[in-house]
């Protein structure tokens, strides 16, 4: 970073003219309710008319009906210029914490599935252990998510509102609920309250079906060509990775706890992880085939290396237990589980890195906008019903609205308070 480039330099002076960084500027009007000098009501000073009035030749011609709409359509759907002068969109700013969180959240939801399945099959001990795996995997998740924020001290604001439209908001609520259910289930298991543990385990598995998949939705609901055009594949692919890594982590834990190799739970988990990895490879392959131009970023640079590493790792993991015979079977199965976990991690990093590369691919972004990106583009419904972005009617003064309002205000204030405490002395 060179001298004078304040855009990136750490030496940039970002002291605001009024107030403190991040806080509202504490200013007051000299005279209450007074206006600004020379300002006219209804922005009367804004008259474009001072150069371009109705009496000037600037805009003196009345358009023919439909003339402008036709001109717009012609220029926006005509030939696309050979070179796109980008950047068209901004690449995601997320760093390593996010794919690592995807991986851990996936393991947690996969382990929750395994716990539910073990409970249904009647293996209470394995279920309890699987719930511990789920809790252990999900515990570092909030730390990673907070570390990735631009303003980590304001993490509480994630729960300031309940917004079904935002996958990240729903994910934050789901993570909170999943962790609570998981902690409750483990506590119940330890206290010997088996039925409570089982019930919480069912809730956790249901929440896990969102926790393990919403991350795919989160990526698919962006303008990044690779992610957006994989929208119905990303969720299922992420669930498959989650199931495989979760089952692998659970099976390794059970093996460490001394469960025999021919135990039905062991066999079931081994099949589950292999099946999930096969599903993930199948879905990925089908998706890559149909991605067309959007998939070009997968064959270049870091994303290419990561995807190849991921596929290589899980591929070896699939073959190893099949070729192992006799005494080497057990270690082969364990090595396979470790390979699935490593491959799953590589897949998470690969998807995030490929998205960044895709956003920087100006031509792909432009082609997506023109509906000419993927092979099956014409399958997409073009005119879907759209809703105005967040213009809800005002809340009533009393009743539940009052509680909601108080909640938001409290969370917002608490966030600023935490930030003040954390950044004090800096």
């Amino acid at each position, binding site marked *: 970073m*060179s001298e004078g*480039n304040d855009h990136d330099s*750490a030496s*940039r002076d970002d002291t605001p003219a009024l107030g403190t960084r991040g806080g509202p500027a504490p200013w007051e009007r000299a005279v209450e309710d007074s*206006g600004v000098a020379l*300002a006219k009501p209804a*922005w009367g*000073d*804004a008259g*474009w008319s001072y150069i*371009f009035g109705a009496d000037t030749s600037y805009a*003196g011609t009345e358009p023919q009906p439909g003339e402008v709409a036709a001109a*717009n*359509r012609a*220029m926006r*759907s005509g030939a696309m*210029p050979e070179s*796109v002068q980008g*950047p068209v*969109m901004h690449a995601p*700013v*997320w760093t390593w914490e996010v794919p690592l969180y995807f991986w851990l959240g996936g393991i947690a939801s996969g382990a929750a599935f395994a716990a539910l*399945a*073990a409970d249904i*099959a009647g*293996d209470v001990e394995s279920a309890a252990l699987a719930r511990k795996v789920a809790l252990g995997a999900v515990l570092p998740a909030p730390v990673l998510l907070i570390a990735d924020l*631009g*303003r980590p001290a304001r993490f509480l*604001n994630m729960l300031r509102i309940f*917004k079904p439209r935002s*996958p*990240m908001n729903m994910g934050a609520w789901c993570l909170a609920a999943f962790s609570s259910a998981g902690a409750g289930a483990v506590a119940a298991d330890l206290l010997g309250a088996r039925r409570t543990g089982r019930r919480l385990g069912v809730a956790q598995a249901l929440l896990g079906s*969102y926790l393990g*998949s919403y991350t795919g*939705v989160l990526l*698919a609901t*962006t*303008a*990044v060509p690779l*992610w*957006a055009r994989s929208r*119905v594949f990303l*969720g*299922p692919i992420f669930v*498959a990775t989650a199931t495989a890594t979760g089952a692998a982590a659970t099976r390794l834990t059970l093996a460490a706890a001394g469960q025999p190799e021919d135990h*039905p739970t062991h*066999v079931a988990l081994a099949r*589950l992880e292999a099946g*999930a990895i096969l599903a993930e490879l199948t879905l990925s392959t089908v998706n890559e085939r149909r991605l067309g131009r959007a998939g070009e970023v997968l064959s270049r640079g870091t994303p290419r290396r990561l995807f190849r590493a991921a596929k290589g790792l899980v591929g070896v993991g699939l073959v190893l237990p099949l070729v192992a015979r006799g005494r080497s079977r057990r270690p082969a199965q364990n090595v396979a589980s470790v390979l699935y976990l490593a491959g799953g991690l590589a897949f998470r990093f690969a998807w995030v890195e490929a*998205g960044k590369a895709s956003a920087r691919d100006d031509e792909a972004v432009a082609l997506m906008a*023109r509906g000419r990106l993927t092979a099956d583009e014409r399958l997409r419904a073009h005119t879907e019903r*759209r*809703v*105005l*972005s*967040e213009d809800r009617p*005002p809340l009533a003064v009393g009743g539940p*609205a009052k509680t909601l*309002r108080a909640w*938001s205000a409290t969370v917002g204030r608490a966030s600023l308070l935490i930030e003040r405490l954390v950044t004090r002395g800096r």
Partner: protein
Amino acid sequence: MTGTNAAPTELAIHRGGARRMGFFTDTSVCIGCKACEVACKQWNDLPADGSQFKKGGSYDHTGDLSASTWRHVRFVELLEPSPPLQQEAISALPAIPPAGELPDLVAMAEGVGSKWLFMSDVCKHCTNAGCLDACPTGALIRTEHQTVVLQADVCNGCGYCVPACPFGVVDRDPIDGRAGKCTLCYDRLEDGLEPACAKACPTDSIQFGPYEELVAQAERRVAELHGRGIDGAYLYGAADEPEHELAGGLGAFFLLTEPPERYGLPAEAESPIQENLLAATAAAVGAGLLAAAGAALSFTIARRRGR
């Protein structure tokens, strides 16, 4: 947003009688002076971008919109004409003048069909705004002027709005940590002042006013330019048929004379959340439930065989 009547759980500010306000940026009269960039930075207390030449010798120092650049004059340097135009121009090139006499480079460049376009880019204040749909904290809200504003005291810098904007407007500041973008000078509007960039624009390329009035003015301008033989003039983001609207219609729209990609703009745009959320969620949650069921099935089969 202290001092406004924004309800904390709301994602919109409501005020009776308020009209939609917007920008009409007419690139046909932009001279690339960057007064809007400077005025925006001064009013909004934004740091400078440094002064390096970027992108292979372009005069465009700033490069693109960012968390600290809310107006950006994009320089579209069309210095390479199409091959037929080039052929035509080469045959019409003036003879190389004798030594000592300087050739008129401007005239020569014009002769080869070069174009140098300027476009003052800004947040589009979409009707269907991707950033507003994505924001998990409610920091991004819709104001009574139907603009999209980021509440700096709420934003925690999650970065989700950044790839959710199909126009590459909002960004997260690497130092400050929060996202930042044009507010259409919400604070100035509250005091009856027009936005700083529109106020500073010396050619009135940036025009501010009630949305309907702006669209009517812009349509007359397009007709005027068509009448003068500039057939390529069109509006980007306004006066479209409903099925061709960009993100439901742009609160800040543009008059352009080249295809949108020349200016780094997508030919179509929609809130990615509104476009993909239902399909993606249905597939994802469906797969999640299927995986849980698959796990249960695998265990039941293993148990039965084990007995």
